């Protein structure tokens, strides 16, 4: 079988489509799926006031509508996603605490390789007294193979507080077609 290597395939001038011949199968046209993909849940009990802690996240081992780990790249023991290959990855993350006072803040932050200078952070401020505050964000991050991503949270209620399990989460996937 011969191999044809080209940079671009386009339609004939004046036409808008490129069609495969009868019986042909389209395979290998780039990474058409956004894999790996994961979504994990967790929290952190008794978080000290004004202090970053790494969220204890886990994939339960059996995929369901709230948790999955397609590609097996989430390290449950260390609560981190490990990139299997270089590329652009999209992460969405939420950290949830119950606040007590107006202007209490909740922070959500992802870090690459435990480097606070290589991080993406968002904070959400309470607007009243006791509220359930979700600090949420999405970030597209370029990772090298074996880079790892972890979720950190912080709260400023003045006292220790629990990052709410089931509402604190991180999800992500590799962006297909970008390199």
């Amino acid at each position: 079988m011969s191999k044809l290597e080209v940079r671009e395939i386009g339609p004939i001038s004046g036409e808008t489509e490129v069609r495969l011949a009868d019986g042909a199968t389209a395979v290998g046209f780039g990474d058409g799926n956004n894999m790996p993909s994961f979504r994990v849940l967790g929290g952190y009990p008794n978080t000290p006031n004004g202090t970053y802690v790494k969220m204890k996240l886990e994939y339960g081992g059996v995929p369901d509508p709230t948790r999955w780990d397609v590609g097996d790249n989430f390290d449950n023991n260390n609560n981190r996603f490990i990139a299997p290959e270089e590329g652009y990855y999209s992460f969405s993350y939420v950290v949830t605490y119950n606040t007590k006072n107006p202007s209490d803040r909740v922070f959500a932050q992802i870090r690459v390789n435990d480097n606070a200078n290589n991080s993406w952070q968002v904070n959400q401020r309470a607007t009243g007294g006791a509220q359930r505050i979700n600090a949420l964000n999405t970030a597209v991050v370029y990772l090298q193979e074996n880079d790892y991503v972890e979720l950190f949270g912080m709260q400023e209620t003045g006292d220790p507080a629990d990052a709410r399990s089931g509402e604190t989460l991180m999800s992500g996937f590799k962006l297909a077609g970008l390199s």
Partner: protein
Amino acid sequence: MNIYNGLTGLGFKNIEDFSLRDDGEGVYIEKWFSPAPQPTDEEISNGEQTFSAQQEARETLRQSMITKLAATLTPEETALLEELL
């Protein structure tokens, strides 16, 4: 020692001046951003006492406000005021 309260008592602000972290074995200063030198443990401990005094003064002020306002309120309104403040 409560590092957050100590640093706050010394006038430093979270995120702007410092960043704390806890890996499960106690809180520590992970990053120091302030142009001022990072305080010693002794200074932080002193700051904690300042913070406590500030909090007590604030609570005294709060109670004073409630007492003054309550003079014109019904018991139910006073109870709600205490809840809100």
